[in-house]
């Protein structure tokens, strides 16, 4: 439900960054999105479309790279959680270690990171 405000913060940051490089245009934004965030890809794309209508990002491509959630356990296990049967469409963080059954910690999958930009800059 907060995709819009997250996206507008993100775009503010991108505009600032592109100024540093004297970019004339942003061609592509590469975004890493953790599966444990409450940010929906569809809603992010919609917000992106609306918020790039009249700025340096106009017409640019948003590439979303999904990042799998990861858990870690004292027994040494580190990796994916056991998949949950109930919710095929959304990842449910289940904190039970698939190896030993003890309580595991979430160590990945909460990111919403603008990794890279592809920008057009003057060739000097």
């Amino acid at each position, binding site marked *: 439900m907060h995709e819009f405000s997250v996206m507008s913060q993100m775009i503010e940051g991108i505009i600032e960054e592109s100024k540093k490089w004297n970019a004339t245009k942003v061609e592509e934004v590469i975004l890493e999105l953790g599966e444990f965030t409450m940010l929906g890809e569809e809603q992010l794309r919609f917000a992106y479309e609306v918020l790039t209508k009249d700025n340096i990002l106009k017409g640019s491509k948003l590439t979303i790279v999904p990042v799998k959630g990861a858990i870690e356990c004292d027994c040494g296990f580190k990796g994916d959680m056991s998949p*949950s049967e109930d919710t095929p469409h959304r990842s449910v963080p289940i904190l039970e270690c698939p190896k030993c059954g003890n309580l595991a910690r979430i160590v990945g999958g909460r990111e919403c990171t*603008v990794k890279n930009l592809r920008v057009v800059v003057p060739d000097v």
Partner: protein
Amino acid sequence: MGQAGFTSMHKVVTVEMEKDILAENRHLADHNRALLDEHGIKGFDFLGAIGSGKTLIIEKLVDRLKSKGKRAAAIAGDVSGDDDYQRFVSHGIPAANINTGKECHLDAHLVDHALDDLPLEDLDYLFIENVGNLVCPVDFPVGSHARVVVISVTEGDDMVRKHPAIFAFSDVIVINKVDLAQAMEVDPRILERDAKRINPGAKIIMMDARRGEGMDELVSALGL
């Protein structure tokens, strides 16, 4: 002096940015927690469905702490209005009100501002009531020491399955209004079972906040 062609004067480069919007909030949350630590304050944030009983539970905790000679304060987070804030004030504790306006959740920055309005030197405990919402607050920790999620049987027995993430990221899970379970034909044990499966480490407490049932368990789960 002819233009040498647009393309030859420009090139496309890849710029590394590595900026995580959510991480910025988490960083601010750490800052809030450090501020509480500096003052020896234990902070708890209460999340949960709309009307599940968050304010009532905090009111009861505040009264208990008062009778033990401990000093608590509360931050009320609501989309608009000051109803919950006034309820906290009526218990004679310092309180701050945050209206989130368009936003559906508190964030660490808003809480940081509210902390400015509280007499941190004079406090032992701080309760932060988030906006009633089982989705958004998951992405925005505010800097408490423990998170309590409150749901009630009146929302149905599928609440946990529908919003699993919030239960995975909480320390204490309160299943409130068990007094209404029969009338609602909802079995609170289903909620308990689902919560346990998603977060086996969380304390799960059955509560009737009106009558104070389950309050002892909550007090000990929070170490109050």
